[in-house]
C-alpha cells in the first residue's frame, strides 16, 4: 500500500525527514511515534500528498478519493454547520447516498443533535469529532491520522478507540501520536522518529 525509500523532506536549509524507509502492506496499521518536532506531521503530510518529498521515492497505492486525513485541527469551516460541512465534502468526494451516510456518521459520533449549529459554537472536542467524520465520510482505504487524540474530549477519544478497533485489519491505517498507549495492541508496524 505504501512504499517509501530514502524519504527526505527539507524546508530550505531545515531538514525534517532524514532518509526514511517505510513499508506498509494493505490493511496494515502503522504507528508512528516520536517527540514533538520529530517530523511526524511532515511525514503524514508527505504520505497524504500535501507535501512532496525533496528526495527519495514514495508510492502510495490510493488516489485522493480513497484517502482520509485528520490532523489536530478538524479542517472544517467554522461558519458552516456540521451538515453543511459534510455535505460539501460529500459532494467533493462524490459520496453515494450522501445524506444517509452523513446522518449515520453524525449519530455515530454523537453530533446528531448539534448538526444544524455552526461549528464555531462547538467545543474543541466536538469540532474534532466532526473532523473525524469528514475524514471517514468517503470510506477511505487509507486513513492518515496525525495526533488524533490531541484535541478530542473523553467521549471523542472513546469513540475513536472504537472506530480504530473496527477499522484495524479492514483498512490501512497510519497513526502518528506521541502517546501510543492505546494503540500498541492494534499496530502491525512501528516507526519511531527523531
Amino acid at each position, binding site marked *: 500500500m505504501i512504499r517509501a525509500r530514502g524519504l527526505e523532506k*527539507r*524546508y*530550505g*536549509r*531545515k*531538514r525534517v525527514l532524514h532518509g526514511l524507509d517505510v513499508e506498509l502492506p494493505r490493511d496494515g496499521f502503522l504507528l508512528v511515534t516520536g517527540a514533538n518536532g520529530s517530523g511526524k506531521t511532515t511525514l503524514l503530510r508527505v504520505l497524504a500528498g500535501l*507535501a*512532496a518529498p*525533496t528526495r527519495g521515492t514514495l508510492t502510495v497505492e490510493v488516489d485522493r478519493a480513497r484517502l482520509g486525513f485528520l490532523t489536530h485541527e478538524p479542517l472544517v469551516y467554522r461558519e458552516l454547520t456540521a451538515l453543511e460541512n459534510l455535505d460539501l465534502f460529500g459532494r467533493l468526494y462524490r459520496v453515494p447516498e450522501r445524506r444517509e451516510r452523513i446522518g449515520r456518521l453524525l449519530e455515530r459520533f454523537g453530533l446528531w443533535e448539534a448538526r444544524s449549529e455552526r461549528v464555531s459554537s462547538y467545543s474543541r472536542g466536538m469540532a474534532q469529532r466532526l473532523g473525524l467524520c469528514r475524514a471517514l465520510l468517503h470510506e477511505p482505504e487509507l486513513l492518515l491520522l496525525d495526533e488524533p487524540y490531541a484535541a478530542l474530549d473523553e467521549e471523542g477519544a472513546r469513540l475513536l478507540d472504537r472506530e480504530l478497533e473496527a477499522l484495524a485489519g479492514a483498512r490501512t491505517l497510519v497513526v502518528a501520536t506521541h502517546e501510543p498507549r492505546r494503540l500498541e495492541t492494534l499496530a502491525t508496524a512501528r516507526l519511531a522518529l527523531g
Partner: protein
Amino acid sequence: MGLGLALALLVAPEDADQGISQRIFYLHVPIALTAYFCFGLGAWKALLYLWRGDERHDLESYVAVHQGTIFGSLTLITGSIWAKASWGVWWTWSSNQLVLFLVLFLFYCAYFMLRFSLEEGARRARSSAVYALFGVVLIPVSFLAIRLAEDFIHPTVFTREGPQMSGTMFAAFCAMWLAVTLLAYVLYRVELVGKRLSTQLRELAEALR
C-alpha cells in the same frame, strides 16, 4: 571575457556621437533590452521549475529576475538622465518604454517581497515561479495598456524617437549591446555561483550538526 567587456565598453562610447543624450541612449537601450531578456530568462527557468521540480531552476529563476530588476532600475535611471539631457525634465509620462519599466519595476519588486514573506521551500519556489510567469505575460499587456492610455493621459509634446543611427553608429550600438549582455551574463553567473556556494555551505553546516 573581461577583456572583451572592457574593450566593448570603451570602444562604443568613443564611436558614439556628440552629447550626453546620445551617449546615454547607447547605454539605455541595451540595458533595457538586457532587462527584458533577464525577465524572459527568469520566466523560462520558472517554467522549467514547475515542469521538472528541480530546485536549481528555482535559484536560476530567482537570480535571473534579480538581474532583470537591477538592469530595470538602471534602465529607469539612464532613461531619466536621457530625459533630462533631451528635454530638460527628469521624468516624462510620454515615454512608453519608461512607463513600462516603471510598472515592471514595481511588479518585480513585489516578487522579492513575495519571496521574503514566504518560508524557504517548495511553496515559495512554486509561487515565485508562477509570479515570474505572470511578469513576462504582463510585459506585452502592460505595453498595450500604456499605448491605450495615451489617449486620455494627454502627453506633453515630446518627440519620442531616438537618435538616427548611421552605419558606424549602429555598429557601436551593437557592440554596446553585446557588452551589456555579457556584463549581465557575467553578473548572473557570479550571483548564481555565489548563491549555490552559500547553499552548499549551509547544507554542510547542517549535516555536521
